[in-house]
């Protein structure tokens, strides 16, 4: 029994393509958890990172927070949240995912804004741009590749870690892995893992495309 055999078994099984436990449905669930977690994390991390980067305040607090957040075990948090909140829909699964994603978004955004060349910022202020315009018209466009990089690593981590949602009876690709382990159906375990890896790769591709679309050629410098 090798991996290819497992994969063949998993993907050629017609039952895996239809219904509640079919790949399309599990994909949608997985994407939904990931997207929601990432959106919440971005909604927290981006504004704080932009503000602290722009004003130069709170840098130390941010790095302390990031170190703490990285040390948090997602799985432990999941169990803790479930015990604490009960099985309230997706909430107990969202909290560890968001906690996981906020740190890279926050820290990278802060660093990205801090690393913008001070000369254009000085010029912009000197020509009478408001502070918000300086941030959004001068700093963000130049910091965008780094900010997107932060979002991308957050997204990859979320996509990979969203498998744990299956521990608390939610869906997503984690179902194949957890159910497969429980029932010793290793083809399902391998299939689920490959699907998660594929999705992580697709995420990288997506961010590459977004970068091409929203980062100015003047910042990409012909790359």
């Amino acid at each position, binding site marked *: 029994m090798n991996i290819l055999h497992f994969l063949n078994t998993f993907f050629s099984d017609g039952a895996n393509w239809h219904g509640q436990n079919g790949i399309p449905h599990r994909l949608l669930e997985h994407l939904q958890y990931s997207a929601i977690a990432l959106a919440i994390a971005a909604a927290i991390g981006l504004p704080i990172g932009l503000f602290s980067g722009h004003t130069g305040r709170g840098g130390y607090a941010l790095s302390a927070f990031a170190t703490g957040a990285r040390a948090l075990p997602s799985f432990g948090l999941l169990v803790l949240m479930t015990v604490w909140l009960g099985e309230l829909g997706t909430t107990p699964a969202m909290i560890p995912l968001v906690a996981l994603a906020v740190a890279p978004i926050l820290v990278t955004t802060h660093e990205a804004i801090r690393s913008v*060349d001070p*000369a254009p910022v*000085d*010029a*912009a202020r*000197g*020509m*009478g741009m408001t502070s918000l315009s300086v941030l959004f018209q001068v700093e963000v*466009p*130049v910091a965008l590749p780094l900010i997107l990089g932060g979002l991308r690593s957050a997204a990859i981590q979320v996509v990979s870690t969203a498998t744990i949602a299956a521990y608390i009876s939610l869906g997503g690709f984690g179902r194949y892995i957890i159910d497969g382990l429980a029932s010793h159906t290793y083809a399902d375990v391998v299939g689920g893992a490959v699907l998660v890896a594929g999705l992580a790769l697709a995420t990288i591709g997506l961010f590459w495309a977004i970068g091409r679309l929203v980062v100015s050629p003047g910042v990409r410098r012909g790359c």
Partner: protein
Amino acid sequence: MAGNPDAHALSSPRAKLARNDLSTPRRGPTLIRIESVTKRYADGTVAVDDLTLDIPDGSITVLVGPSGCGKTTTLRMINRMIEPTGGRILLDGQDIHQQPVNALRRSMGYVIQNAGLFQHRTIVDNIATVPRMLGWDRGRARKRAMELMERVGLDAGLAKRYPYQLSGGQQQRVGVARALAADPPVLLMDEPFSAVDPIVRKGLQAELLRIQAELGKTIVFVTHDIDEAIKLGNMIAVMRTGGHLAQFAPPDELLSAPADAFVEDFLGTDRGIRRLSFFTSAGLDVTTEPVVTTGADAAGHVLPELPFLLVTDADGKPLGWARAEQGEQPDYADLLPHGRPFVLGRESLRDALDCAVLSPTGWAVAVDGTGRVAGVTSQETIATAIREAHAARKTKPAEPGSAAADPANPAAAEDPVNPAEAADPANPAAAEDPVNPADAADAEAPADTAATETPADTPAAPGPDAPGPDTPDGDAGHPVRATR
């Protein structure tokens, strides 16, 4: 084309006032007045100490001094990038501290050392930044930006490029265009040309003088380079470490009468020679006696003190020096190079002297604006003219003391020989810009070939009031600026 700002470009009442000032002889109130200003940073450093400076309207004021003497701090207090800890700054008689900071900054162009372009925007959009901020629609802002690209000497083909695709010098031009885009009455420039190589810097300086001749902005220019200060400034404020003002004077006066040992030391050697740049060659005696057309009979042309004849082509352009003895025909096929001629009346006595010193015969060749020989002159004649120019200035009341007493009126101080012209209301450009930057630009233009270029080739498009090439600023004593 030149000079005039579309009316729309001005948004604030102050800007309008300033523009009106430009259309009449500028004798109104000083636009920027720095009053006993002190800046003490949080760490206790006193960067500027009780500085008082009246920045004259419509001309270039240079702040110069060694690194760390407080030039940048002074400049940035004018647009409130830094707030003073004492004293106040008035703009058109009003304390800038009372004014909305962003509106204030939008009425002042700001140019910094590495241009500080927005790398995510194309060149045309960089230049259009302030007009867009002022609410112009995109089309109009871009049209204006294209006009400015032309004004600062940038090819229109660069409009769609990004900053990283431009050379340092080109980027700096974009920086200047961007600062000029909304036609602000004031331009603040902090070492704008320090980061480019000397040749490019020379071109940028000439371009700035040319633009200034067209637009007549009130420019505050910071540099640590005294040569740049002398080249560009109508007035120069020499600052010394600790934020003290050492001297505030027109360049000519600075060179002739440095206030103290610090200023003298800062000016460096050659003060006397460099000052000759401010003496016109217009009144210089030249003789056409030893000038002959090639192939012509030279009889009676050879001067006793000069065993050479200057040979010209049929058009009157110089070909070279021919050895000649009294009563003999010269060998027209064997000529010595004539070297670089100077343009009589347009270039300075410094240029004339330089030509004479470099000439194989010791005599300088003078040409008119079209490159035809106007005559030749000896080192002795030039020396006499220099003595006379010094003497003329000494007798004039506007010299050192009184000029310093009236810093708001640099024109009077710089044009002591011809006060009548300075007051001529029909000719504001001449009155306000005795140190005619357009001419300086001409004289500078590409390397040292300007003198032999026909005027049509010169890049300058002088304003309506600038003297044409065929009428070199004729009046004796009218200061000229030329290659330094």
